[in-house]
């Protein structure tokens, strides 16, 4: 009997201590639940992500689309949230944007990184020349549209990763082109290679056809991973590449200037299910803001290069980014 009472007493003390701790920490969290910007300002003292034991009961499944930059972003979010104490599962490499959205809406994943331009063009049917050129406005519009689907689009990254029409340096010289509209009289002799979803997208083939009036000799869909190889091996005259691809500098590709402003801004934002946002509490937007802050154009290109050129895994590279930035010890 005595033993039981002793145990009960210890338990009571422990519980009290625990509640004090929670209340004490809880106060901090309440303050930082307003917006990403506020919390970042508060954390200048120590930039590392702090683990919060409360988050352990929340399971977050991070998804991503099927190319390098997406896998790296997915890993960064996943590892960042894990450092904050969440129970994280990963379902990276799902497929193209429509498959990813379907998984998100269906609940198979809790969140995935999507680009503002892609969301507006592919999900919400906005014509590419009607998408705001200002990244902040584009984000606000995307956020409003996502909200209608019970999805929260968290604030975007500093970097923008745009679709572009690329060709080898030699080919550009041979054709004498620097802008996309230079292709208007030449397009009927040129082959364009792009990802399969490009065929259906306003910010890709459809836009090139409608905004620039280009009719290519042939459009060949290939897996997105092959977008540079088809240029290197001479099969493609033109290929749709991303501005953040490390292969551009390395192989000397030329990106044609989008003089008619067809390509929208593509900042990456983490799109999360509303029920997960509620369950996850204020730490989630805070951590997302922390990990995103350092993702400038140069940094994301470096990270992409580490995967594509150095052949490190996205998991390794995300880990390196987080530790090099001092976010995770």
């Amino acid at each position, binding site marked *: 009997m005595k033993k039981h009472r002793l145990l009960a007493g210890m338990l009571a003390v422990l519980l009290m201590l625990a509640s004090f701790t929670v209340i004490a920490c809880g106060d901090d969290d309440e303050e930082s639940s307003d917006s990403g910007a506020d919390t970042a300002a508060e954390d200048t003292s120590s930039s590392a992500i702090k683990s919060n034991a409360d988050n352990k009961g929340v399971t977050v499944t991070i998804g991503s689309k099927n190319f390098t930059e997406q896998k790296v972003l997915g890993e960064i979010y996943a590892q960042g949230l894990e450092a904050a104490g969440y129970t994280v599962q990963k379902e990276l490499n799902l*497929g*193209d944007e*429509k*498959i990813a959205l379907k998984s998100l809406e269906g609940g198979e994943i809790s969140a995935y990184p999507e680009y503002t331009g892609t969301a507006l063009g592919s999900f919400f*049917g906005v014509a590419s020349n009607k998408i705001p050129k200002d990244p902040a406005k584009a984000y606000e519009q995307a956020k409003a549209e996502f909200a209608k689907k019970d999805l929260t689009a968290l604030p975007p990254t500093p970097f923008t990763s745009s679709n572009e029409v690329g060709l080898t340096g030699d080919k550009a010289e041979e054709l004498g082109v620097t802008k996309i509209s230079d292709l208007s009289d030449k397009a009927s002799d040129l082959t364009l*290679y792009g990802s*399969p*979803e490009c*065929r*259906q*997208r*306003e910010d890709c083939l*459809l836009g090139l056809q409608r905004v620039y009036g280009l009719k290519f000799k042939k459009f*060949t*869909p*290939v*897996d997105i991973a*092959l977008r540079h*190889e*088809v240029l290197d*091996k*001479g*099969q493609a005259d033109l290929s749709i590449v991303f501005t953040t691809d490390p292969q551009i500098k390395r192989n000397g590709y030329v990106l044609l200037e989008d003089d008619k402003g067809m390509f929208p801004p593509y900042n990456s934002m983490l799109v999360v299910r509303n029920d997960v946002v509620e369950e996850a509490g204020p730490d989630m937007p805070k951590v997302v803001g922390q990990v995103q802050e350092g993702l400038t154009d140069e940094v994301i290109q470096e990270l992409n290069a580490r995967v594509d050129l150095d052949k490190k895994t996205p998991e390794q590279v995300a880990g390196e980014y987080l530790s090099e930035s001092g976010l995770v010890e």
Partner: protein
Amino acid sequence: MDQGARHVTTTFAFLGQFGDAFEFIFKGQTTREGTEVGGSQFLELTWEHLKLTFAAMAVACAIAVPLGLWLGHMRKGGFLAISVSNVGRAVPSLALIALFVAFLGTGFANVTLALVLLAVPPILTNAYVAVTQVDPDTVDAAQGMGMTGPEVVRKVELPLALPLIFGGIKTSMVNVIATATIAPLAGINTLGDPIINVSGYGDTGRLAAAICVAALAVFTELALGTVQRAVTPEGLKLSTDSASRRMRLRFGREATT
């Protein structure tokens, strides 16, 4: 919902999806962006699929049938002819296509080459085995009648070997049709496009394509099976059992019918 009700619902949903898929195949849809998928577009994909298959099969037969017949007639290179099938079976088709894409790049010619490599082994092995299982007495009799080597091959060995050769062609062609489904990885848009590049087609389109590929394979099997039976000389049909038994015992069950 209790177990029973859930099973019924799943079954109906399953059937419903098949119904949608069939509609997709025959009527097609227009995507929100205004492009046509399914219906007649599927005919384009099927045509591309068949083009690739026939191209690969033509080259493979042109190489493997004469080679197999000759090796069999000369009773040479048996080990090679049999092993090539063993090795061929061990190489996954995806690895083969990926290898060709990585080393040679995308394009119709490259994919055809990969498919030819895939198609040759069954034809070669079957052609070889088919010739060697021709009764030596028959060959002797023919030579006794004054036929030259090539004549023996053409007039005696080939007709008797035809059933098994067609068996090999049948196996090969079904394999090639199956592998042509992953050709979209190399930029050739076959019926595998809705399966590998789902975008725009949706789950319905993907299921529809799966049905089409399956149907194509089964149809080829039945059609070539009929041809195979048609070219089997009457006498052979009756003794097929003992012939294939002898064949299997001598060649280690490598020849496929």
